[in-house]
Structures are given as structure tokens and as C-alpha cells.
């Protein structure tokens, strides 16, 4: 029982005028996620992180290789049977909820589509239960997205992802659109749910600090390749690949406040002295 990404490659055709070329978005990547495990996928924009997420969710087909979840191949069988196992929490909670529908509707729909409920009464109960699981008041079911804050919306998105009974969650930058002070509570919520439900989580981010503290393992992607992987603390405290070092240098470290300012000042003075 695990999520297996096996030698997956994704190429996109790019047409420029009459010429066409190929972009290798993901190059021969393999990894697995066990239930209860969090794997962080870090890298710059365009490195292929989201393409991997899309392939796992069956929104894109891999060019080569295969993806299996608990033995079910991503290219075989019905979509619903597969998506029952893996769900996504999208980056932007202001865009991922439909403004016309109530919060309850967002959670009811996956429950009904995946046949998790058989009566109206049961649906209501399950919706209330799911909202409580993400620390929201069950009365929220009647509200609409615009009445909720960003953090509340992202909790709804998490409840929606849990509704079909998913065993694996793909969280693509789940907190980057949220205010700093509520990011932690949403991540802590994800961590609690993961523990309670023994979920496997792929946490896609460019924030190395939360990647380290939130996940068991970190994979670093650069231009379609996984260039480094290992236990979180090892990758952060003892990086091996040059690109990982570059990423680490670019991450703000509040404890080093003033260092960057001094560095730039020294460089400027040195260049003037020349």
C-alpha cells in the first residue's frame, strides 16, 4: 500500500512559429509515499513540481513511466475509482472554491459522487463532521466562500479533499496565499489530520523552513530532475547538491538579520574602492 511514481517522464511539445521543440518537464523521476508519510517537493517555478502533482492526480498523462496508488494504475480503470484515493489541496483558496455555491455544497458533492452517503440526513451529518474535523463551525455549511477568510477557505478545501475518503493528499503550496500568522495553524491542521487518518502527503512548496519541519523527507527538483533527496534535517542541514545550497542561501533566515545588509554594503564599498 503506497503511492508509487515509477520512472516517470513528461515531455511537452512547444511550437514556436513553424518549428516545434520538446520541453522535458519531468525527467525520469521515481519515488514513493507510504501512508502516514509526508514528502516535501521543493524547487523553483518551472522545475516540474506541479507537473508531477498533475500527473499523480491524473490531470496529465506521463509520457513514460507509471504511477500507481495502492496498486491501481493511474491510466487504468475509471477516474472516480482512482481519485477516491488521491485528492488535491490547491494553492489559491480564493480561486478554488466556487463563489456561487455554499460551503456545504463543496463538501456534499464529493460525498455524493463517491457514494459515501445514502440519505440527506446522512449527508448533513457527514458535512458537519468534516467541517468539525478542520476546526470549522458546522454552521458554516450555509455560508458562501466570500464570507470566509483565506484560512477558513483553505480549511474548507482540506475538508473537501478528505470527503471522498482520500488516502493521499497532494498539497500544492497550500499556505503560500495565506497571511503569515495563519499559515502555521493550517499546516498544523494538516499534520494532525495526517496523523489521525494515516494519510500520505506530498507537500509541494518553495518554503524550505516549513518543508523541513512539516515533512519526513525532502526532494529537491531542478529543471525536471530530482537532484537531491533525503531525510528533511539532512537535506537542510547538510545539503549536497549545488542547487540545494543555492536555494538554502536564498531562504530568509531571521536569525541572520542584518547579515545581508552588511554584505551588500561591503560589496558596494569594495567596488567603489576599486
Amino acid at each position, binding site marked *: 500500500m503506497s503511492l508509487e511514481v515509477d520512472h516517470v517522464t513528461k515531455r511537452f511539445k512547444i511550437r514556436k512559429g513553424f518549428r516545434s521543440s520538446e520541453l522535458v518537464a519531468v525527467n525520469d523521476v521515481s519515488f514513493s509515499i507510504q501512508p502516514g508519510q*509526508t514528502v516535501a517537493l521543493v524547487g*523553483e*517555478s518551472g522545475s516540474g513540481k506541479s507537473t508531477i502533482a498533475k500527473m499523480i492526480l491524473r490531470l496529465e498523462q506521463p509520457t513514460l513511466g507509471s504511477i500507481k496508488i495502492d496498486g491501481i494504475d493511474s491510466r487504468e480503470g475509471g477516474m472516480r475509482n482512482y481519485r477516491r484515493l488521491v485528492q488535491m489541496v490547491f494553492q489559491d483558496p480564493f480561486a478554488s472554491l466556487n463563489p456561487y455555491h455554499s460551503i456545504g455544497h463543496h463538501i456534499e458533492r464529493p460525498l455524493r459522487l463517491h457514494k459515501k452517503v445514502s440519505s440527506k440526513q446522512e449527508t448533513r451529518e457527514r458535512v458537519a463532521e468534516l467541517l468539525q474535523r478542520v476546526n470549522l463551525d458546522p454552521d458554516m455549511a450555509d455560508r458562501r466562500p466570500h464570507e470566509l477568510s483565506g484560512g477558513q477557505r483553505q480549511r474548507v478545501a482540506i475538508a473537501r479533499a478528505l470527503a471522498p475518503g482520500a488516502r493521499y493528499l497532494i498539497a500544492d503550496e497550500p499556505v503560500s496565499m495565506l497571511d503569515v500568522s495563519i499559515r*502555521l495553524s493550517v499546516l498544523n491542521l494538516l499534520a494532525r489530520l495526517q496523523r489521525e487518518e494515516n494519510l500520505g502527503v506530498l507537500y509541494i512548496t518553495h518554503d524550505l523552513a516549513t518543508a523541513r519541519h512539516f515533512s519526513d523527507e525532502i526532494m529537491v527538483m531542478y529543471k525536471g530532475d530530482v537532484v537531491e533527496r533525503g531525510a528533511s534535517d539532512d537535506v537542510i*542541514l547538510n545539503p549536497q547538491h549545488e542547487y540545494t545550497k543555492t536555494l538554502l542561501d536564498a531562504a530568509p*533566515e*531571521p536569525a541572520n538579520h542584518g547579515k545581508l545588509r552588511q554584505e551588500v554594503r561591503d*560589496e558596494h564599498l569594495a567596488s567603489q574602492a576599486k
Partner: protein
Amino acid sequence: MTGPAPLSTPDLAEYMAAREPVLTAEHMTIDYQAERPVRAVDDVSLVLNRGEILGLAGESGCGKTTLAYGINRLLKPPAILRSGAVTLHDRNGTDIDVVDLVDDELRQFRWDKVSMVFQGAMNALNPVLSVKAQLADVFTTHRPSMSKQERQAASEELLSLVGVDPARLTAYPHELSGGMRQRVMIAMALALKPQVMIMDEPTTALDVVVQRGILREIMRLREQFNFAVIFITHDLPMLLEISDRIAVMKAGRIVEINTAENIYERPQHDYTKQLLSSFPSLLGDRGGFVRGKEEAHVARG
């Protein structure tokens, strides 16, 4: 309505005394006129020193962008400046009362003395004009005596200043990467060598590595031209690294203001402490963050 003054520590007075102010905002109060008026900025006073990077930290809706617009006279109805004064202490020794400027005076003041890098700068460039046309526009408006050749030379110089190949002058915004567009925006704000630049979330949508490059560039240019920066963001870890001084804003008020070092080492306000504890350190402790398995550990132990 006056509330408590921003918290601080006594040594800030010493820091301020050693510097010369370039911009002073006093008792700024800004409302959004709706059925029930909303007070977005509530009696805020702020001094910006020459060549200083002042970080303005706060969450969405706390009034930081509104305050910046108020300082730069960019408020549009329903926003209205209820009271307050803004004074720019010009390089040549004269004081300009920004709130009283009208028509041509205002046009001359804007961009020349105080320029702005707007939020969502990724989309702030005009998509149907080349970079060249957009840069030249600044010069034709503010420096009408410049010849075409001079404008061309000045635009090329600006691009190389911000680390963009001057050959890209003829490019259109969609042909540039996000980081390059951002650099063009900064070049544009820099065009008239202003004394103050207001930057509203200038790097938020960018990749960390690109973001780092641009922050370095801003800081390097600051060393070179000695302009002051009001840097608005909710990213406190970033502010701690680049700012000389940080003001923390909450619900329309500045609740704490101090040097970056003091904000980090000796925060006074509970809200500042809360902000500081809400991001985990990269290399240090876990802070308020608990990984699933270990929390279970603690609960059991």
C-alpha cells in the same frame, strides 16, 4: 481619535537622532467612505530617514497599502484622507507640503521625489507597449527637454543598472520573465533618481532565488543612490533581513516600531511576538510547529 503610541525601546531615539529625515507623515487618518465608513489608517505618524529601508509589516487588510497611497497622494474615492500632513524634506533644503500640492505641482512631485513599485508588479506593465516606450514615457513627461537620443541612452543605462540586458529595451512585457518584469518596474521607479521609493510587495509572486536576486539589487542601488525605501510586505522574515527599521501595523495603527535587530531580539508588542513565532526557523528550532509524529510522541509522553 488618538490611541496608544507605537511601542519601542529607548535606544531608538539614539538611532533616529543620528539620521536626517527625508519624509515625515503626521497623524494620518484615512477612511473608506461606505454606508458605514471604514477607518483604514488610524492616526499614523511616521518618519523616514534619508537612505533608510523602512519595512512596513502587517497582514492583508491592516491598512499598509492605503497608508502608502496616502503618503504618495494616490488615494482614490471612496478612500479619503480625513486628516494628517505629509512633508518631504527635499535634498536642496526646502520642505514640500505633499498634502497641499495641486495639479502641476503634484505631477512634478510624483515620481520625481517619491516613486512607487506597485503590488502585483508582474502585471503593472502595459502589455501593448514595449519596455522602451514605457521607460521613455517617464522622461517625456518629467524631463521634456531631453532629446530622443538622451532618452534612449538614459533608458539603456537604467536597464543595465537593474541587471537587464539593454538589448531587451525593444521587448514587450510578455517576452520577459517575471523577475525581469520586476526589474523593469524598479528601473522605471528609479528613472528620475527619487529620494523615496515605495515598494508594495515587490517580490511576492516571485521564486525565492529570483526574489533574493532582486532584493540584493534593491539594496545595492540604495547604497549607490542613497534613496529611502518604504518596503511593504507581510513577509516579516524577509523584512528582518533587508530593513534598517521595521514598523508593525495592525488594524490601521502602527503598534510597534524599532530597528530590525530590536524587533527580532526585543519585541515589545504581543502582536509582533505572535508574528515572529508564526514562522518556523530554517536552521533552528521548530518553534510553534509540530510534525505529526512528534506531536503524538509529546502527547503520549
